[in-house]
């Protein structure tokens, strides 16, 4: 794969520039991790400590005096529930839109595409009213339900389901397999890569979401880790060590998950863009 044959001065310079840029992109993460082990005195000294020479875990002790574990489990719950529901609903709907011929198909698909072009966040104010009506305010489901409603998953699953060979579906029909059995035992194995992509995509995006969580969740025990970090920031404006410990707790798990499932994630991004 190495097509970079000549090490021309331009290529060497570009490589150097890219390495510098990559390091500066890594710097915030480095500052979070090292910062979380700095004492308050070190964190606010006029000469920054590039490395915590006298590391302390005080910040983490203080962090866990807040309901940080609860915030983390809330986040895991919201992300997992959203992921499972998105996969279930979107795979059924996407397969149907791609492979079934039925009345109103074009209309349903047009509606989905049109709403995807609109900004997601402008529906948030009315959503609060709907959640109040459903008695779901300050409840994790107020975050999960709108996440599942967003039709990107249907679109992605539809794009992917187009590749299911019609002959396979036809022969299942001739064998007398019911619609649901066809879906479970024939369709799902074929669209497995799309499950991986959409699943990891939904999980990470829900984990890192902020706006929806901010307007829906209020009480301290119901917060997610994003909201928890933001709360620590507004309560302890210059206690950077504590804030960095929170940021590390929120971001390290999701970064590890991302690196582990990177392949699926990249697929998800590129698949979603096809004929976007």
């Amino acid at each position: 794969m190495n097509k970079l044959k000549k090490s021309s001065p331009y290529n060497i310079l570009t490589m150097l520039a890219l390495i510098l840029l990559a390091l500066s992109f890594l710097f915030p993460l480095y500052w979070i991790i090292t910062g979380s082990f700095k004492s308050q005195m070190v964190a606010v000294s006029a000469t920054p400590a590039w490395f915590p020479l006298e590391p302390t875990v005080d910040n983490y002790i203080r962090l866990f005096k807040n309901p940080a574990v609860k915030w983390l489990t809330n986040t895991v719950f919201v992300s997992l529930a959203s992921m499972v529901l998105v996969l279930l609903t979107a795979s059924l709907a996407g397969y149907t839109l791609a492979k079934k011929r039925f009345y109103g198909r074009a209309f349903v698909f047009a509606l989905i595409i049109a709403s995807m072009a609109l900004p997601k966040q402008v529906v948030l104010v009315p959503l609060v009213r709907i959640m109040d009506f459903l008695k779901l305010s300050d409840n994790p489901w107020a975050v999960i339900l709108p996440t599942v409603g967003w039709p990107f998953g249907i679109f992605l699953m539809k794009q992917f389901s187009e590749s299911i060979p019609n002959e396979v579906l036809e022969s299942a029909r001739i064998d007398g397999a019911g619609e649901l059995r066809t879906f479970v035992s024939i369709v799902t194995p074929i669209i497995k890569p799309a499950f991986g992509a959409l699943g990891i995509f939904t999980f990470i995006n829900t984990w890192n979401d902020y706006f929806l969580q901010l307007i829906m969740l209020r009480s301290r025990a119901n917060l997610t880790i994003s909201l928890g970090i933001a709360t620590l920031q507004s309560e302890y404006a210059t206690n950077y060590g504590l804030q960095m410990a929170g940021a590390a707790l929120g971001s390290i798990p999701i970064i590890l998950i991302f690196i582990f499932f990177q392949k699926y994630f990249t697929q998800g991004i590129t698949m979603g863009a096809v004929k976007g």
Partner: protein
Amino acid sequence: MTTAKPNQRGSSHNLMRKETIVSYLFLLPALLFFIGFVLLPMGLGLYTSFFNYTMKNPVSADTFVGLRHYIDLFGNPAFLQAVRNTVFLVIVTVPAVTLFSLWVSSFIYRIHAGLRSVFRIIFYLPVVTGTVAVVVVWKWIFHEYYGVLNYLLKSGGVIEKNISWLGSSTWAIWCIILIMFTTYVGQPIVLYVAALGNVDPSLIEAAKVDGATDMQVFWKIKWAQVMPTTLYIMVITTINTFQCFSLVQLLTRGGPSGSTNTVMYMLYETAFNLYDYGYANAMGVILAIMIGILSAMQFKVMSKEVSY
């Protein structure tokens, strides 16, 4: 044979009818969520933008105000400033993100697969780290006295006195742009690397045989081939920038003196701190229209360029 035809048509009608029932059963779960939590709130948002709907009013006491919210908005200097700031963010961010990610991708797509993957992960990291964590650490970096940025610039001799980056109406918006930039380039790089990898190598070979320079190959072949990707990237970056909220809310709360206020942040403040839902929804409708027009314009301009 001829008698079988109407029968066949009849059975295909039946089949279609049966398919329709099954199809909607399969669509039902997704449609329930989609209608209840996307379409319904969209409709409600548009509807209440014509009403004087506040927290204090019970729903029944909403009064119809017609277009008054919209007329008020266009006479509201704070809103106009928010629109200007938002458009400014788009004008700076969209070209910067597009060009930067194209530049990075056009280099890394040719290098060793393992190294390419490392670069791609690193440029994607700020997205995965999460907005709140990213903003919290940048706020520290930007701090007037405790921040590493002022320390570096002072020791490098670039500045003489500490600058209050987030407290200055000149610099604060550039701080937002910088953070936005680092969190926006990850996805375009993934897309460009994939798109450039798909460019037909025989096209490039043929051009080189004809004596085209590297520059010519890049603009005439690769740039033209990745045009749909460029279009997609510009549209999503525009939409994301228009909706810029978290950065503003966590970093500056729109200040100092409104210099970083965006439409989305003002909408949030109006709805959730002033509880003026109707007015906020009118802003949402205007925002949606602006995004729609801009996306359509970009689509038009770019598709014209694709078709030569």
